[in-house]
């Protein structure tokens, strides 16, 4: 044994004493991989040298299934990709097929879609914020977030009968009109929900320990974020002012007055875990604004009039993207003129956002990997499709 530190270092340098890296298998069953993700961590002590993600534990061949289904039959499959934001998934797919067929949907449908999508965004962000808190070790905010998410799910349930996987937005319309008193329910929810944001801020987001754990951790510079194709809160957390709802407007987002939230590095460096987290918190506020404005001018009308009897898009292809809570959800749909899509490719934001994890994790500690993974906010259903 080496007696002193110098002797120890000499021994290591001379090769008499070997140090080695440790490979730690994090997942597929692990409390904080948010599903069945397997991360192979190469560690030097507690510091991470390399992260090798292994995906596919939840691969269900969405794209293969889609080729064997008719166009409307694909919609329930899209629900199951990002199962925390099923409304937004429906929305993207419905938009893609509508554009392929050149369908204009009625005003009322657009409004309902927007309100549903924004409610879903709040619900999804609540899960992201809560689980991120739990990854850092704070359990209570998680339940506060889930309590509020419950109100949203109740609204969805009253409208379409489902709480998680809705199959609600159809090509050209919706499966059901909203229930009686929908506007009242949503307005009531917004009124109750706004104070919660402050509650979560007080309890979690501005907690000294929380900031210590998340600020300056997993810094993602803007150019790297763009090169890796990161989108959504991931990209905005890095200070890139880019939101599809404003910069590539779809549906009727251009009619509303709201702000794109961007990470400013208030607690540390721009693009750290805290920024990504706070972008989600601020976005919930903006979603509330959009919903309130949409409720003010909520039109009457028939929601089924644009639903085509026979969905058989002309030959062609289209790439449509919408702003999911997690980022850019793209559908690349190729039609060969038959009633089944020739090819449906889904570009899941979680899949792309996850690919950056190795880049931003190196040199951090194991505990930071958990924080980084939590701030990326992946849904494995979408990563693996």
């Amino acid at each position, binding site marked *: 044994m080496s007696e002193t530190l110098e002797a120890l270092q000499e021994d290591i340098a001379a090769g008499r004493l070997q140090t080695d890296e440790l490979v730690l298998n994090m997942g597929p069953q692990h409390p904080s991989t948010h599903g069945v993700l397997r991360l192979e961590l190469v560690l030097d002590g507690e510091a991470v040298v390399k992260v090798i993600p292994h995906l596919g534990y939840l691969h269900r061949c969405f794209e293969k299934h889609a080729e064997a289904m008719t166009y409307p039959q694909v919609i329930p499959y899209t629900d199951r990709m990002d199962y925390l934001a099923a409304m937004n998934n429906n929305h993207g797919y419905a938009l893609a097929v509508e554009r392929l067929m050149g369908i204009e949907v009625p005003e009322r449908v657009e409004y309902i879609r927007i309100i549903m999508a924004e409610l879903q965004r709040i619900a999804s962000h609540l899960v992201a914020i809560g689980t991120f*808190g739990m*990854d850092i070790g704070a*359990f209570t905010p998680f*339940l506060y977030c889930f309590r509020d998410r419950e109100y949203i799910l109740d609204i969805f349930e009253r409208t379409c009968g489902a709480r998680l996987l809705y199959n609600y937005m159809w090509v050209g319309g919706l499966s059901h009109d909203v229930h009686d008193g929908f506007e009242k329910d949503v307005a009531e929810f917004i009124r109750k929900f706004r104070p919660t944001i402050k509650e979560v801020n007080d309890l979690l987001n501005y907690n000294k320990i929380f900031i210590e754990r998340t600020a300056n951790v997993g810094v993602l510079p803007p150019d790297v974020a763009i090169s890796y194709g990161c989108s959504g809160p991931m990209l905005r957390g890095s200070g890139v002012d880019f939101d599809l709802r404003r910069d590539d407007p779809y549906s009727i987002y251009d009619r509303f007055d709201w702000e794109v939230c961007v990470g400013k590095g208030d607690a540390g460096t721009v693009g750290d875990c805290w920024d990504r987290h706070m972008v989600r918190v601020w976005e919930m506020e903006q979603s509330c604004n959009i919903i309130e404005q949409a409720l003010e001018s909520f039109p009457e009308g028939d929601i089924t009039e644009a639903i085509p009897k026979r969905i058989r898009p002309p030959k062609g292809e289209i790439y449509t993207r919408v702003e999911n809570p997690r980022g850019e959800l793209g559908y690349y749909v190729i039609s060969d003129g038959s009633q089944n899509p020739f090819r449906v490719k889904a570009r899941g934001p979680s899949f792309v956002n996850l690919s950056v994890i190795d880049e931003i994790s190196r040199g951090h500690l194991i505990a930071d990997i*958990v924080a980084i993974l939590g701030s990326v906010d992946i849904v494995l259903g979408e990563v693996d499709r």
Partner: protein
Amino acid sequence: MESLLQSLLGDNLLTLVLYCALPLVFLLLYALLAILGEVKISAFMQDRLGPMRTGPWGIIQPLADVLKLLQKEDVTPARADKFLFNLAPYLSFMAAYAAFAVIPFSSQYVGADLNLGAFYFLAIGSLNVAAIMMAGWASHNKYSLYGAMRSVAQIVSYEVPAAMMLVIVVLFVGSLNLQDIITAQSGPFWNWMVFGGPKADVQLASGEVLGASWTNLVFLPLFLGAFLMYYITALAETNRTPFDIPEAESELVSGYHTEYSGMKFAMFFMSEYANMFLVSAVTAILFFGGWNSPFGVYLGDIWDAQWLVGLEQFGWLAFKGLFFVFVIIWLRWTLPRLRVDQLMYMCWKVLIPFSFGIALIVGFLVVVLK
């Protein structure tokens, strides 16, 4: 207390065993209460009800939990070091329980009235580290090993400031005997250490007289700081939030006891809860008068029933201890978790310098004022 038992059962081995087992009875009852308290308190903090099915308001839930643990299969991983793996949980509980020997539950009951009580408490507390290391190493699991390494580093580091806080009180009282430390704080609550210690001369349990006067108020800020720091280190030594890094669920699954199930897990669990009460009780003893009534008088004295005084004293200690256990639970459900390097920073660069500073000032003042 010992004499009472002796008069009932005679001076034999049974008496001795019973005498030693008294804290165990208390500990088991307390563990049941604490398990229920943990689930119920967390539930109320989180806008939910907690267990409601087992008994009215779920009050027999802890019994159901214990039954579940008893029935569980006792798994030993194939490549574990079986001897160490099986020994570790019992050693861990033993270490926690052995420390109860010097805890004075009342002026009449203390397992072993050592004049080195405070020192013994520190020494036996460190034994837990060995148990944790054994568990982590023997499990043959990387998560366990990481948990154990972190835990050992954490406990060993935090023992330094914890010991310094003890030394501060010991310096002031001039005795390592915990019973002496408590007696020094007898009388109303303003005589407690956290309020600057006794304000008039007191006779210690050992017979010596501790000279004191109202000038002791100068110690108030020092002891208040010492109390806060001791409580923080106590949280760290019991591996509770925000210092629950060794078993950080979201990182290390559950640290050194990842591979344990059934009774062996229950042993670790018991030892964690026992440690929680232990550090809470020691906090109460060092800074909050131990078994002293905050009013300075006992109902037993008023009604002339000496047996009641002992019970009251035990009640006060249990109340104070449980209150600090409650605060530990409260913190757990409020705060996030620190990172391992921040934890070490906090210990070596914040707590230790401050604790040495306070110890220096207290030592100086003690010399000057006496």
